């Protein structure tokens, strides 16, 4: 075991050296002049500043005092850092209630999405049944369906079930799969060697057993991608909560913050709004930095194949 790790490290060191070499060379092996990447770097640093600006402005505004925020010209760096704004933002509105509702919805949606889409994708990728691929075209077709056309009937249905102003309309649909996630998982699960599945079948394992013992461990990276996508989409959703959640005690962060802002429309404290918004984004930023490669892989699988 330890030798394996050692060789791994050696390989890593070697490849790092090779990488460094590679950056200084053209594809045909000739050495690049030192200034060749300079222009590219300058452009990219400028672009980076532009793309970091909204996030920076959010944090800077969140830390400013009321007086400093109203100052013109605006200060780039807060002169005194008001960390108390974060505490005030959390107490100025039922932030914890909003946070809990968002968390309940997001966690439920993630669990249901992963389970339902995994089982469905297994049916499309690992079992050979007549008509399967034609049925899969229907999945693809529903990808392009504009959702507004389903908006009013769904509201009507949930209203008649008496479930408006509960979290259910935002959670239950996740239990029935979604075309995009089924598509993404199927592409991944088609790579599971058929021989492995067939061998398990010959040994008398049921499909349900194969699903959990073979397909689940091999599909874990793709399932992680689905979990992350579902989490981000659910956490950031605005229109769903806007339509279904009217009472403050069931509202999520997205709609709760908007309510806070429109109730205090005349003199809303933007530093508090920015502080609260930053607290909303923080879990996403953490998720992104921890699972970065799953984000990138998921987006590229979904868009390309």
């Amino acid at each position, binding site marked *: 075991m330890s030798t394996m790790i050692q060789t791994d490290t050696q390989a890593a060191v070697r490849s790092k050296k090779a990488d460094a070499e590679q950056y200084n060379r053209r594809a045909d092996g000739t050495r690049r002049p030192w200034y060749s990447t300079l222009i590219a770097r300058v452009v*990219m640093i400028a672009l980076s500043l532009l793309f970091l600006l909204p996030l920076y402005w959010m944090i800077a505004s969140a830390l400013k005092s009321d007086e400093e925020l109203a100052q013109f010209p605006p200060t780039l760096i807060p002169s005194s850092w008001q960390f108390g704004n974060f505490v005030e933002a959390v107490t100025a509105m039922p932030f914890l209630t909003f946070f809990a509702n968002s968390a309940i919805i997001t966690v439920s949606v993630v669990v249901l999405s992963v389970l339902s889409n995994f089982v469905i994708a297994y049916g499309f990728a690992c079992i050979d049944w007549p008509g399967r691929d034609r049925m899969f075209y229907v999945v693809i077709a529903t990808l392009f369906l504009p959702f507004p056309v389903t908006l009013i009937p769904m509201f009507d249905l949930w209203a008649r079930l008496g479930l408006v102003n509960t979290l259910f309309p935002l959670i239950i649909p996740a239990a029935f799969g979604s075309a995009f996630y089924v598509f993404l998982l199927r592409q991944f699960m088609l790579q599971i060697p058929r021989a492995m599945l067939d061998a398990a079948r010959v040994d008398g394992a049921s499909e349900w057993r194969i699903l959990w013992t073979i397909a689940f461990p091999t599909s874990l990276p793709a399932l992680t991608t689905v979990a992350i996508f579902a989490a981000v989409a659910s956490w950031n959703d605005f229109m769903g909560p806007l339509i279904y959640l009217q009472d403050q005690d069931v509202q999520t962060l997205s709609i709760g913050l908007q309510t806070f802002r429109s109730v205090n429309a005349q003199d809303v404290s933007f530093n508090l709004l920015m502080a609260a918004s930053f607290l909303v984004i923080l879990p996403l930023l953490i998720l992104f930095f921890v699972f970065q490669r799953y984000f990138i892989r998921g987006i590229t699988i979904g868009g390309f194949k």
Partner: protein
Amino acid sequence: MSSPQAVDSRTAGPGRAAARAAVAAQSARPRPGRSTVRRRNLRTGLLFISPWMVGVLIFIVYPVAYSIGLSFTRYSGMEAPTWVGLQNYVTAFLDPLVRTSVGNTVFYAVIAVPLGLIVALSLALAMNQNVREVALYRTIFYAPSLIPAFAMSFIFIVFLNPQFGVFNQVLGIFGGSNVNLLGDPTGVKIAIILMAQLGAGNAALIFLAGLRNVPRTVYEAARVDGAGPIRQFISITFPLLTPVLLFNLITGVSGALQVFTEAYIVTNGTGDPDAGALFYMMYLYKNAFGFAELGYASALAVLLFLVGLALALLIFWLSRRFVNYDVEAG
């Protein structure tokens, strides 16, 4: 299950025939008839995808049919719908606010979709530069895509504030006077379009995947033939990116038709000034949930559905002329 001579036809070299024979021998063993297996597989397969089938019925077939039905009625959500025939559609064609909202949405789409493709492609080219810290740039360019539309809108409200916003300070440097971009019917649309460009990270990553799929040898051959970087982009990169471009174009158009959250937040749900940010989805939402005109809103939804479908078909039809699938064959 752990059979080492796994029958993977792709990896099998000379042992391929033997592996096939092994499979044939295996399937020659006594087992239930072929049709019985097929029927059992059909049953199991359908069982596994049954959640999706139920979902399609409840969340797609039923609502689409019900929307079409409701669009011929007057319905407030309280009492039973009353049949009004084509009246909602007639009203929609005469409604000046429908005209305004369609105009706003077209304005948005015509600028935001091409601009979005250019920004995303530029970002992808930047993300594909051969410099050591490129992973850092990728992270930075993608980060704003994580910020939810509502929070990004709050940031822009602070940013563009006529009294203390940084936007006016920048204008001041260039000798401009105070502008309230969000107080102008065209300005508010432009602000929303600019805001959307910061979320180009998703489309950029899809372009990036396309860029990395272009074989290096093609570029090397072009360089030998004396093609410079611009020539290489026009003759190689761009044609080979067209399949990805098609995907991003369709997502872009469908997103533009449905632009809602940013406009709702920035205008606090009004769509003002002068209905300048009243996009089609905003007007649909207002009719459904503000005025309780669910029948009329359904007619608007059906029209949007038809337009979306027509645009998707048009794009697919056009794509047969410009999309190049050579890269997948190669």
